[in-house]
């Protein structure tokens, strides 16, 4: 080994070869049967349970936990999948402390919620391990539907539509389906190729033809899809990335966190992946945390997340923030980048300290610099390349009702659609609900 954590610059192989597998192993190992029984016993089976209300996909959580506790985890999984066909990945990536677990009455009682996420993973893993797909398609309707984007929203919509008996073509610009699940989350949250396995399993319903490598605007057009299909669902996600707008941003080793994560996710050999010694991540969301923690796990000596507002404004959940700091990542709040210094390659980043004022963020006048040989931008993604005739709202596709766009016959959901909260689970709910609406409209037209 020639490189170490102290080697300056952006280099691969900072760690002993055997460290990578351990560093990138399952961040939350699955519950075994005994642990699941103990955890399930804590559920009170609440009336009109707050956890269900808090779940964007309205999974009947008390019911599935009761099914686990009575030794029928596959029945539990069906309860989950009925509402959320991506219940497997959601069990891994949902910010449960802000959703189901955060509203668990056990929080009120003793500050420790029922481990709903872990139990959901226990049940869904159990059923998926059987191999069989749990749902059967309805009778063929003869309707053909285009779903654009094979991320959480598109997969959810495609599955629900296929289950209703429609023929679905699922387009995706990337070589692999899965969207953010495949390309955009930290690898320790979905180990052993879970995202790909989940898509394979989901497609087991049948009736979904996957067309990878097909980008809207490049290989397919909205007009073409509208002409060829009975309905179109857009689950495009957010492909564009935001720039800092900071002087010196064009220096070498100043990149987007999403690109860093994507390369890491698709890497076959983590020891070959270069990473800086001093890594600075700008942003306050899940992407910032995923990038920062993974940089640390790749062997960076110093990793710092810098967020321009106060800690209470960070969109990364408290659990994610804790995970970052426990992993050795430093979080600095109330600091905004001013200038990227360096001679061709980033060497330092200069920040101003900020405070919240009546008119937004204010410069306190104080400055500091952080050494950096790699700077990752994680300040949000945006929607790119949307056909101009779709009405927009706040930079996203305007929708009304269950994902209806301004053009009849075209629906949208997930991150590309206005509203929502950019969570996987919300995308799943929107895809599912749009699918139900598409089905209702097509069947009404067919019978009307």
């Amino acid at each position, binding site marked *: 080994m020639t490189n170490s954590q102290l080697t300056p610059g952006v280099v691969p192989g900072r760690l002993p070869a055997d460290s990578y597998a351990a560093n990138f192993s399952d961040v939350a190992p699955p519950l075994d049967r005994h642990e699941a*029984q*103990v955890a399930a*016993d804590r559920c*009170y*089976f*609440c*009336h*009109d*349970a*707050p956890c269900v209300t808090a779940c964007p996909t309205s999974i009947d959580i008390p019911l599935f936990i009761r099914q686990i506790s009575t030794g029928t985890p596959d029945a539990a999984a069906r309860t989950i999948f009925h509402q959320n066909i991506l219940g497997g990945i959601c069990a891994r990536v949902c910010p449960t402390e802000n959703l189901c677990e955060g509203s668990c*009455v*056990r929080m*009120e*009682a003793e500050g420790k919620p029922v481990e709903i996420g872990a139990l959901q993973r226990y049940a869904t893993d159990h059923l998926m391990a059987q191999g069989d797909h749990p749902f059967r398609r309805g009778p063929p309707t003869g309707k053909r539907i285009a779903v654009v984007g094979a991320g959480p929203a598109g997969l959810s919509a495609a599955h629900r539509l296929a289950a209703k008996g429609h023929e679905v073509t699922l387009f995706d610009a990337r070589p692999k389906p899965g969207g953010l699940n495949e390309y955009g989350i930290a690898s320790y949250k979905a180990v052993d190729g879970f995202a790909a396995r989940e898509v394979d399993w989901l497609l087991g319903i049948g009736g979904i033809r996957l067309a990878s490598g097909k980008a809207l605007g490049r290989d397919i057009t909205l007009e073409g899809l509208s002409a060829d299909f009975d309905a179109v669902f857009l689950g495009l996600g957010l492909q564009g990335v935001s720039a800092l707008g900071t002087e010196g941003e064009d220096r070498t080793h100043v990149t987007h966190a999403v690109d860093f994560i994507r390369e890491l996710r698709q890497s076959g050999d983590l020891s070959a992946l270069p990473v800086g010694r001093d890594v600075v991540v700008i942003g306050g969301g899940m992407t910032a945390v995923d990038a920062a923690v993974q940089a640390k796990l790749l062997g960076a000596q110093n990793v710092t997340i810098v967020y321009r507002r106060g800690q209470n404004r960070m969109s990364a959940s408290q659990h994610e923030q804790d995970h970052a700091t426990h992993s050795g990542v430093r979080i600095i709040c109330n600091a905004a980048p001013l200038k990227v210094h360096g001679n061709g390659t980033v060497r330092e980043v200069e920040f101003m300290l900020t405070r919240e004022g009546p008119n937004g963020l204010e410069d306190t006048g104080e400055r500091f610099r952080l050494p950096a040989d790699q700077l990752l931008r994680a300040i949000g993604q945006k929607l790119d390349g949307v056909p101009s005739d779709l009405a927009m709202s706040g930079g996203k596709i305007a929708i009304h009702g269950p994902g209806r766009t301004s053009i009849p016959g075209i629906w949208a959901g997930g991150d590309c659609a206005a509203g929502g909260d950019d969570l996987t689970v919300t995308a799943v709910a929107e895809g599912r609900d749009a699918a139900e609406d598409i089905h209702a409209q097509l069947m009404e037209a067919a019978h009307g």
Partner: protein
Amino acid sequence: MADLRSNFIGIKSPNPFWLASAPPTDKEVNVRRAFQAGWGGVVWKTLGSEGPPVVNVNGPRYGVVYGADRRVLGINNIELITDRPLEVNLREIKSVKRDYPDRALIISLMVPCDEDSWKAILKQVEDTGADGVELNFGCPHGMAERGMGSAVGQVPEYIEMVTRWVKQHSRMPCIVKLTPNITDVRKPAEAAMRGGADAVSLINTVNSITSVDLDLFSPQPTIDGKGSHGGYCGPAVKPIALNMVAEIARNPATYGLPISGIGGITTWRDAAEFMALGSGTVQVCTAAMTYGFKIVQEMISGLREYLDDKDIAMTDLIGRAVPNVTDWQYLNLNYTTKAVIDQDACIKCGRCYAACEDTSHQAIAMGPGRVFSVKEEECVACNLCLDVCPVENCITMRELAVGEIDARTGRPVRPYANWTTHPNNPMAQAAE
């Protein structure tokens, strides 16, 4: 500090906590460990007649019922009386008693229903120096098929006859252990008293099948594909036992007959409840089988603390609740309470609402923000909300004073009156 020393029908023990005749008391090694742990007394596992001992199954002996977190709520067993030779047991009893003279050592007996069999074994037991005998008329499995155990306990005449033999042929204090597998427990208790018993102990185990193996389609414990009913014990049977103890304690015919309470006693609190209903001592088995002998230390400290807090002697506790066990017809029908939900303690699970709305009187309202409140105009004070609430003391029952308006009836609460004088009662006695 409260004095826990017990003198039960002349049998003295440093505390009222005895181990019941059962698997934990079958051997010297177990009984010594029990005494070392602090048990006040032991009822040695039932001895049979001289000769080849009984044999036990070589498959599983126990079935179990679990509560949450695999807490043992009940165990049933198909183990018979001791399967070790009589002389070995007698030798061990003598040895233990010699080393623990301050502890109570009672010997459980079950021999065929003839006078000679009883006469023979009583002499042998007396020679061990044991403090007394307990007649096992309760064991519901196996031995009952051979005309012993509960086969005797279900026929009051047999109980009286055998008890009389025992008192005739022995100076030892005699406790008759009763089976719950009968319709009226007062009858066997009265029979034991007529036969001269010094005390009764109850309950023995309840006929039971704890579970069915849904792959083998056989009761558990399963022996080579078949199962037999066993004797059920543990916390699950405590309510049955408490009622039977109370029935005997308040029965004029057996009033004052000493009782050794048995049935699911797990903590000091359980023991105190049995004592309040008239038990002079209590016997424990399942709790020891679940957690080991050390549990007696919690029972001792807990009962002491309770008695000290109440500032009463243990003898004041024994039977203290008996006068308050009455027939339904004497309950005060004008006594009115209403459920009250402590909003600060409420964790908003809504179980009270589900229970009341689905299965009771629709007397709980669910407001915005999951605020649950009692509709006094509907509340019949059934108590179910309190029972299903996971937070202790979150829901309480408020007693309405006499004269206060009951929102449900719109009428003021009246003073004591019971069914015997109620106008709806066709048998009502005319008010004087």
